[in-house]
């Protein structure tokens, strides 16, 4: 699904590694029967390789692609550095559900609590960048962990949540640096399209997933 942040992770890795692939988007409000044969839970993304092997859970697909395909390695070779990327990933783990909760909030009052929680989670990420003194989460070059985190930070503007990074200057700098990355730019969806999708999605419109086509 074109607007899914989890699927975006996999797209970023496919692009970053130059892996030839075909994208099949499905309408999450009207899932085709055949999709459940790919993932019994009907969730996106699912990766299917030329041998018909199926892999799901976005982070697992990303790691699989990095291991299975040659070329630029996105995860570090060093076991400890690799573990560090996974620990940062855990640190980030509450963000997706917070953003979803924010999206689905019933009234404005729930907002400030959610925004504060998001702000707290972003502060943890700020601390990592401060301690590491690097531009990216894995060092001075962009690597796997940056791609895994990016899709949610990309959506902040469309969700009117930019204030959540007000007190986290390094994270803001990181966001700017990410936008300059060729892979990120290639996959980026503009704010207007994100907003268009979100509006239709919140109205439960079956057309949401096709916005802009």
């Amino acid at each position, binding site marked *: 699904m074109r607007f899914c942040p989890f699927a975006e992770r996999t797209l970023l890795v496919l692009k970053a590694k130059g892996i030839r692939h075909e994208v099949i988007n499905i309408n999450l409000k009207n899932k085709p029967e055949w999709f459940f044969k790919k993932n019994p839970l009907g969730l996106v993304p699912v990766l299917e*390789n030329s*041998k018909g*092997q199926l*892999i*799901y*859970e976005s982070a*697992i*697909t990303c*790691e*699989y692609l990095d*291991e*299975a395909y040659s070329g630029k390695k996105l995860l570090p070779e060093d*076991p*400890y550095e*690799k*573990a560090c990327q*996974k*620990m940062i990933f*855990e640190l980030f783990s509450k963000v997706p559900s917070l953003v979803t909760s924010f999206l689905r909030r019933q009234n404005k009052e729930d907002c400030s609590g959610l925004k504060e929680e998001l702000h707290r989670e972003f502060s943890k990420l700020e601390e990592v960048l401060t301690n590491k003194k690097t531009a990216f989460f894995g060092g001075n070059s962009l690597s796997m962990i940056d791609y895994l985190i990016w899709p949610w930070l990309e959506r902040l503007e469309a969700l009117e949540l930019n204030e959540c990074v007000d007190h986290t200057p390094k994270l803001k700098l990181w966001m700017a640096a990410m936008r300059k990355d060729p892979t990120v730019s290639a996959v980026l969806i503009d704010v207007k399209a994100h907003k268009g999708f979100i509006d239709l999605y919140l109205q439960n419109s079956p057309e949401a997933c096709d916005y802009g086509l």
Partner: protein
Amino acid sequence: MRFCPYSHRTRLVLKAKGIRHEIVNINLRNKPEWYYTKHPLGQIPVLETSQCQLIYESVIACEYLDDAYPGRKLFPCDPYERARQKMLSELFCKVPQLTKECLVALRCRRECTDLKVALRQEFCNLEEILDYQNTTFFGGDCISMIDYLLWPWFERLDVYGIADCVSHTPALRLWIASMKQDPTVCALLTDKSIFQGYLSLYFQNNPNAFDFGLC
């Protein structure tokens, strides 16, 4: 902490790979100040290498050990098989919380029928995998990482009082029996009476619970 299932995972991997290590147990009800320098939230397990590098989250620690140390590899080499083991790990992810909730409910003499139904459903999902694969273990015919990652909770079913939750899952029961024959699993098996002793003290809020069974 000697009875923690998450730490148990890490100990299984250390033993399976023959990695020399020292265990420092901490009292979870009375955590020493220094422990927060190892883990900001004071959670266990934490792995500290000889270079003072700290790794936490049990699954991350287990993967690190498999990557960093030579010898027997517990994760498969093939990227797809590795991904399969990680997907299985995801399939299992509701079990730890459910088993803990069952334990607490039973010990507090509360109703836990719904919890047990939910747990059985999770076990059915795992049963389906073993049936479909037609293998003894979750990663194939030999024991591997995924089996060690799941094991600690199955070892505890009996002492938690929920062994009947595998009554409808024969392949899973066979897996449990096969696991108990593994030298690594055996070496780390905790004596049932010691575990019961710990649980009794724990639920009485006794701060010495974690030390039960030590001389």
